């Protein structure tokens, strides 16, 4: 029964997401999201049966077709299993659709999909990141609009979850799982420093870091070679200093970067670096290496996406030691608990050039729902869709993340996903310099205000 409560509270939380859409006209969506929360709870109860019937109604309509899909669920990716399960189920439900799917390595996929878009050689269904990444393709008219197909799935897929793939009020993507940034803690190490819980206030948190340092334990591990890992820390610090709305406005270009509070927050982050809380060798490591270090007990804290839950849960020796929580509030006047970094980003979209776009759209919704379902069961992330079926087997970490999300009141999407490709790279290069203490907070905000168009 406990699980059921978690699920419905999770949904309620999901409903309030101030997930701000990327398109220019999408801003109001964020404001309307809050009232929707009231109606969300009952929807959760009806969602499960609806899921079962929806599939059978629409299946086996029309002559056999073949659909091609590209994604990044490679053999060693933790999402692989959920794709395989979902596709197996789809084959049974949609015998007239043959799905050819191919998985590519994350980084090379970005190259590949862009080359395919510029040559008009896209597969029918493709994996994409929401907001700016998909937005560029939408602007170029290469993506099929999913508004019609979505009508059948309104009950199972809350509209707020589509915010990141909505452009000019039209929906273009089917979200899969969503993830937030979590503060993972190695409780064994915290105990050594005399803490049984992750401190709830910023002052205690800093005191805890000092205590860890005094014990010769490095508080934070962060991969400097992959700048997105630095943003997981920096964005949380900024958000908990200036508040979610301010940061969101900046990320989406509605406010200038030249904001003294942001500058001060960046200085705060830098003081963490300068106080020696971060592993100095992190600057030369990849995320895989840092994560391995964390699991080997080298760091007390590791801030990263909640997709890591599955990996942590899979390591029997490490799993009992790890806890996930929210980064404490730094400036209580502007920020509060419940303001998180993250949101649905992993998305499936349909190519406008697909000869069977209409059926591909329906197929994509059905597939997305199942990938989301199995991904959630595997602990790869939180569901963007209303969960159905038995979810009690989900690992404790993912459940803890669900609880955090259940209490969330606003989300800010990862900065490099929210911004256009060019801006995101400018942003990342500044973040890089902040981490290396090449620029201070003032230079950071002024530089970004100048360089981002």
């Amino acid at each position: 029964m406990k699980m059921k409560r978690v699920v419905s509270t999770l949904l309620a939380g999901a409903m309030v997401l101030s997930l701000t859409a990327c398109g220019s006209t999408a801003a109001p969506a964020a404001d309307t999201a809050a009232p929707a929360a009231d109606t969300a709870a009952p929807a959760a109860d009806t969602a499960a049966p609806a899921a079962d019937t929806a599939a059978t109604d629409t299946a086996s309509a029309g002559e056999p077709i073949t659909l091609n899909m590209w994604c990044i669920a490679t053999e060693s990716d933790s999402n692989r299993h959920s794709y395989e399960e979902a596709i197996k189920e789809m084959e049974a439900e949609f015998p007239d659709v043959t799905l050819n799917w191919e998985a590519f390595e994350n980084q090379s996929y970005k190259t590949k999909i862009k080359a395919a878009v510029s040559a008009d050689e896209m597969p029918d269904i493709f994996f994409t990141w929401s907001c700016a990444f998909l937005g560029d393709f939408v602007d170029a008219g290469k993506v099929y609009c999913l508004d019609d197909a979505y009508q059948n799935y309104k009950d199972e897929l809350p509209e707020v979850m589509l915010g990141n793939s909505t452009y000019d009020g039209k929906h273009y993507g089917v979200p899969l799982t969503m993830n937030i940034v979590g503060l993972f803690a190695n409780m064994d190490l915290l105990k050594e420093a005399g803490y049984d819980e992750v401190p709830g206030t910023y002052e205690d948190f800093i005191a805890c870091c000092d205590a860890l340092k005094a014990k010769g334990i490095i508080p934070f591990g962060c991969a400097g070679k992959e700048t997105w890992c630095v943003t997981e820390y920096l964005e949380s610090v900024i958000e908990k200093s200036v508040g979610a709305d301010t940061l969101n406005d900046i990320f989406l270009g509605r406010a200038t970067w030249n904001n003294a509070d942001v500058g001060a927050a960046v200085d705060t982050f830098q003081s963490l670096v300068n106080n020696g809380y971060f592993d100095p060798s992190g600057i030369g490591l990849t995320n895989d290496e840092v994560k391995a270090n964390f699991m080997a007990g080298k760091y007390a804290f590791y801030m990263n996406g909640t997709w890591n839950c599955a990996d942590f849960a899979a390591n029997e020796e490490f799993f009992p030691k790890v806890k996930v929580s929210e980064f404490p509030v730094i400036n209580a006047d502007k920020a509060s608990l419940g303001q998180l970094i993250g949101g649905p980003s992993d998305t499936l979209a349909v190519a406008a050039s697909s000869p069977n776009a209409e059926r591909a759209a329906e197929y994509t919704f059905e597939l997305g729902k199942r990938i989301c379902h199995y991904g959630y069961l595997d602990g790869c992330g939180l569901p963007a869709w209303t969960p159905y079926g038995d979810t009690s087997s989900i690992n404790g970490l993912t459940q803890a993340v669900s609880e955090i999300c259940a209490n969330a009141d606003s989300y800010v999407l990862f900065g490099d996903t929210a911004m256009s490709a060019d801006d995101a790279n400018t942003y990342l290069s500044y973040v890089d310099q902040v981490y290396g203490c090449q620029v201070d907070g003032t230079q950071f905000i002024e530089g970004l205000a100048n360089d981002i168009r």
Partner: protein
Amino acid sequence: MADKNRVKKKASAYEYQEIEYNIKQTNPVVKVFIYIFLIIWAVINIFPIYFMFTFSLKSNDEIFGENIIGLPRNWLWSNYVSAMNTGNMGRYFLNSLIVTIAAIAISIMAALMATYALTRIKWRASKLMNSFLMLGLTIPLQASIVPVYVILSKAHWLNKYSTLIIPYSAFTLSMSILICTGFMVDIPYDLDESARIDGCGLWRTFFSIILPLMKPALSTIGIYAYLQCWNEFMFANVFISDSAHRTLPVGIKALSGAYTTDWGPIGAALVIATFPTLIVYIFLSRKIQESFIAGAVKG
């Protein structure tokens, strides 16, 4: 640059010099130093192979920290099983083999024909044409990836073996012509003359006289082309989207996922990709080196 007399004399000169000009005469201390240096350098060069092999038999824990360069504690042969099964490495290996061999074959044929026209038929612009074709030696592969992709996709020419074969043969062409030229100018021109007198046309001269004489060039060109094609990643990644035609480098990359990475099987895949080459190399090393050397002397 090859001095024909020099080449011919080489064999006899070797035997002769054995007495006079070899390291045995060198001061013993210097000799020891030379050997120590050579052996240290050899160890440095063998180390990556040892590293790759042991790495392929370890677990993530050992790879990242506990035991980086030692022998594996548990010899995880299962890494190979998972590389072969989930990674589909056998298939990718075969694909790489097909693509590389075909690309080399096309490159050699085109180069032989072009070189014949450039060196053995006299015409005014041949020098200019030669320099034009030599431009290819300096063009970076990645500069042309998107235009080539657009051209190929307009021609509906993606996801076939030939999608990679054609660009690969084009990119190795300049080097092949360079090597071919070296070999072909060594063939005495009298042969063409006498063929002409016997009534052979240019075509027959090429096929029945020049081609058979170019046999030694083939392995040289093959090796240079192989080095360029076998490990190529960018083109293979962008141009091929079905796993049925994927080549090894892309297959290896696909083993590493976005969120999780189990490095042992990746190491195993690397071994699968590299060791056949190395084994062939060890068995044929004399032949291969000679070809390589021939390429250097002629080129």
